[in-house]
């Protein structure tokens, strides 16, 4: 017998025939197709019981009520809360991506101490003891005012506790970052006296004259503004947008009026002049005018004649006049200040001049008008207990008018200005103008304690980091702000146990004060933050705990409003952009990019247009007429007095010739591969310019030149 070719043929045929009438073929075909539909490496979230947790988003000043969908207690989705009076069911892209912040690669997982430039994990007890030791020494040296504090806002019980801490410790140096709310409060205080702030009833106004406010790009409470803008279109209210660039807001407006950047205050002054000259102001409301209306009138007629302002602003005299008259003749006109999100560097003069237009129309504290309302006063803080050292310290003069001015002073001074700095929920080393200067100033501060959830630029420049739970992991009262008409206080509640070894900032402060002991311990006589919060809001705790929010005020505030023209009658100077180059660089607020703390989520960054950022390259918007032969998409170097950056050109006929714009919120330098290392931080190209009088940074832009890179 010989094994030959036919034997192998028989073998093969037999095998094929055997397999063919066995189930192998049919079964493997089916299984293979199933396998390709359910890749084994694709994660499948486990199924379970669906529950909802109620909270309030604190990612921006919008304060939207949220429902967090959970599966077996694991949060899987954030949705807008239907009944919440601010957002009425809506949510923005940052809010719905909020869960990503829980597991962000930059989350600080445990307290950290810097040792020779490197962070080492330590326990909470060690961290608090370390900070308390430093503070104890400051008080021993009788220099409690050398403790400074920067928080994102001064509203709500947590910033309130920092303020309480500072007063009890004996330091007047509590600063907040510049926000739309801080601008509005400062404006209201300047024109109507202290204890006031402004709100805008955009839901009912019939003529909105916006001086660059990005109504659908994050201004105020973003979701409330989206809804107000939709409602405006339905009820036919007019909306004029005055800004140098055809933003999304300008594109939805009835009229876009391009204006040379930084001349908005001059325009508003000229419009005030027209209203006064044409006798189009409300005589009844004018009865409450104080402090030199006549002087103001004489000044605007003399210094801001329409023809002259037309040349400065680039808007024709006829248009200025027509717009002013249309605004004054509307039934419910509202002039809205605050460029973009309204939180950047601007000038008090601009805010005051724009709000004076509201005052002249008399549409104040009426439906569809501007609300001059008291600053939120629902918190009942006990008086802090101070000893002699604290009393002396607290009586010292405040070091600066703003966080920006403080940083500038520290940077410029040879002698130590601040011994210890607390930073809470703010990223000044990124979001203040000229962050290089801020970082240099931080290096001069011997001891920086950062209460933060994320390892951002400021955290990297700190000495001790106390990791804070995110808004999904802790209690906090969250008052509406940033131009929202009423006052709604929401209760952020833990929808999930802290993912890492983090604490509520309130608990951290109480722990710190108790460790310091003495009058500090007496001033913080609460067992924990939740008990503290409950005792601070006795009037609204029932509402907060039952429905998750309390409506403190709704509708127009009562009472007469007095208006003081003294500030504007002096004709404060308009801040000019630094430098003498031909172009003016302005930061752009993009709804998809968070410009302050915390930085954007990975999800949000994924949604940004590739005409803003492509891979790691940043784009600068420019009108093709200004491009001087440069190509769309080509690489250029933007140079300003503060620095230079390599970027790509984005031709946009919707930006005024002579103006270039870069989106804020990119170019982070911390360790997060999803968010950082993309583009340029526009603040690095702008140096701060402190406005005399207000102490605020008024550098809205800077002169710039571009050259082929």
């Amino acid at each position, binding site marked *: 017998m010989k094994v030959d070719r*036919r034997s192998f043929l028989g073998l093969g045929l037999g095998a094929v*025939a055997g397999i063919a009438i066995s189930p192998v073929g049919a079964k493997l075909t089916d*299984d293979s197709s199933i396998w390709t539909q359910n890749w084994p490496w694709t994660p499948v979230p486990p199924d379970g*019981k669906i529950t909802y947790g109620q909270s309030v988003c604190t990612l921006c000043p919008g304060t939207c009520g949220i429902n967090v969908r959970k599966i077996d207690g694991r949060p899987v989705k954030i949705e807008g809360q239907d009944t919440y009076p601010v957002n009425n069911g809506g949510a923005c892209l940052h809010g719905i991506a909020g869960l990503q912040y829980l597991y962000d690669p930059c989350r600080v997982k445990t307290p950290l101490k810097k040792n020779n430039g490197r962070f080492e994990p330590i326990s909470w007890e060690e961290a608090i003891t370390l900070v308390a030791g430093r503070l104890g020494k400051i008080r021993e040296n009788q220099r409690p005012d050398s403790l400074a504090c920067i928080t994102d806002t001064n509203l709500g019980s947590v910033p309130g506790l920092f303020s309480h801490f500072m007063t009890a410790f004996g330091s007047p140096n509590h600063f907040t970052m510049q926000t739309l709310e801080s601008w509005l409060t400062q404006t209201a205080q300047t024109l109507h006296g202290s204890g006031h702030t402004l709100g805008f009833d955009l839901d009912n106004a019939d003529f909105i004259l916006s001086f660059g406010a990005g109504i659908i790009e994050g201004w105020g409470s973003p979701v409330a503004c989206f809804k107000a803008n939709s409602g405006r279109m339905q009820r036919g209210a007019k909306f004029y947008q005055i800004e140098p660039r055809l933003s999304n807001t300008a594109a939805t407006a009835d009229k876009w009026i391009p204006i040379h950047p930084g001349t908005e205050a001059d325009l508003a002054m000229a419009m005030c002049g027209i209203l006064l000259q044409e006798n189009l102001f409300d005589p009844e409301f004018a009865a409450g005018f104080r402090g030199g209306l006549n002087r103001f009138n004489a000044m605007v007629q003399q210094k801001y004649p329409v023809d002259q302002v037309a040349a400065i602003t680039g808007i024709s005299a006829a248009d200025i006049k027509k717009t002013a008259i249309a605004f004054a003749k509307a039934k419910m006109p509202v002039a809205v200040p605050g460029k973009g999100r309204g939180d950047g560097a601007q000038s008090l003069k601009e805010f005051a001049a724009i709000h004076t237009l509201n005052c002249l129309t008399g549409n104040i504290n009426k439906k569809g008008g501007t609300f001059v309302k008291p600053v939120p006063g629902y918190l009942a803080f006990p008086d802090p207990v101070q000893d002699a050292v604290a009393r002396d310290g607290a009586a010292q003069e405040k070091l600066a008018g703003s966080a920006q001015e403080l940083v500038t002073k520290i940077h410029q001074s040879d002698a130590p200005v601040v011994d210890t700095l607390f930073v809470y929920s703010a990223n000044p080393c990124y979001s203040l103008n000229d962050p290089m200067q801020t970082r240099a100033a931080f290096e001069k501060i011997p001891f920086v304690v950062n209460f933060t959830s994320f390892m951002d630029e400021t955290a990297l420049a700190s000495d001790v980091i106390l990791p804070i739970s995110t808004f999904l992991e802790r209690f906090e009262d969250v008052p509406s702000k940033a131009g929202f008409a009423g006052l709604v206080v929401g209760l952020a509640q833990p929808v999930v146990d802290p993912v890492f070894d983090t604490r509520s900032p309130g608990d951290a402060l109480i722990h710190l004060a108790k460790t310091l002991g003495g009058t500090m311990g007496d001033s913080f006589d609460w067992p924990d933050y939740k008990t503290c919060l409950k005792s601070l809001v006795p009037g609204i705790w029932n509402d907060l705990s039952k429905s998750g929010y309390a409506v403190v005020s709704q509708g127009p505030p009562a009472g007469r409003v007095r208006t003081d023209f003294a500030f504007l009658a002096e004709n404060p100077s308009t801040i000019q952009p630094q430098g003498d180059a031909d172009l003016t660089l302005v930061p752009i607020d993009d709804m998809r990019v968070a410009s302050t703390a915390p930085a954007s989520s990975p999800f949000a960054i994924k949604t940004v247009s590739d005409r803003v950022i492509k891979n790691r390259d940043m784009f600068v918007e420019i009108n093709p007429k200004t491009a001087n032969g440069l190509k769309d998409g080509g690489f250029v170097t933007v140079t300003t007095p503060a620095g230079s950056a390599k970027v790509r050109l984005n031709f946009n006929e919707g930006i005024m010739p002579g103006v270039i714009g870069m989106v804020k919120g990119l170019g982070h330098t911390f360790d997060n591969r999803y968010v950082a290392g993309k583009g340029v931080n526009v603040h690095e190209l702008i140096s701060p310019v402190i406005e005399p009088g207000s102490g605020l940074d008024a550098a809205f832009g800077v002169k710039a030149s571009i050259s082929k890179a």
Partner: protein
Amino acid sequence: MSEIENKTEHGSMDGAKECAAGDPKNDTGLGLGVIFFILAFLICFLSGWLLFPKLLYSKHEQPFNFDHALHVQETGDCESCHFLREDGTFSGIPKTESCLDCHTDEPMGETEDEAIFAAEYVAKQREVPWYVYAKQPDCVYFSHAAHIKAAGMDCVTCHGHIGESTSSRPYEENRLTGYSRDIWGNNIWGITKNPWDSMKMDDCAVCHEKETGHKGYCFQCHK
């Protein structure tokens, strides 16, 4: 005629001769081919039927034995443990918390299985990592409420008489797809006698066509 053509012609003639019946010289070659054919056929055929299913599925024992019959007897029905939640979603396999409606960390009976449950899961507050025989893939949306409430179907129609079992059979997982063997069915050819013998899409379609006159649309289940 070229050498190659010669060879080819010769070769083909050889083939004809080899294939011709009654040529005793070539019988052995053919016979060996047939033997090889039969051998290979038998090996592959039997492997396909007997060995292949064993290779395709991996077997897992449940964490401990569960006596459905006893529990049905004690509680009276399936719904006591496998219930619809208020929002209409199905609870599926009960959580340890549900078991604690009756059980405590002290065993109620004397079986070794209950002792494991009490010691390892109740006392340690852990969930039992049951293997789920009827688990459908993530790409399938299935509403128990629609079938139980709206269509008034009985558990047995799809799940068979599992409520009468006194012990947990091993869970068999398809190594390629990760599916439970119960989805395809125990029969490797996919032949079924009862509706609960398999739980593939076609099984759904058969019943839907019978009951509603239509197999249903893709998006009804694949959302």
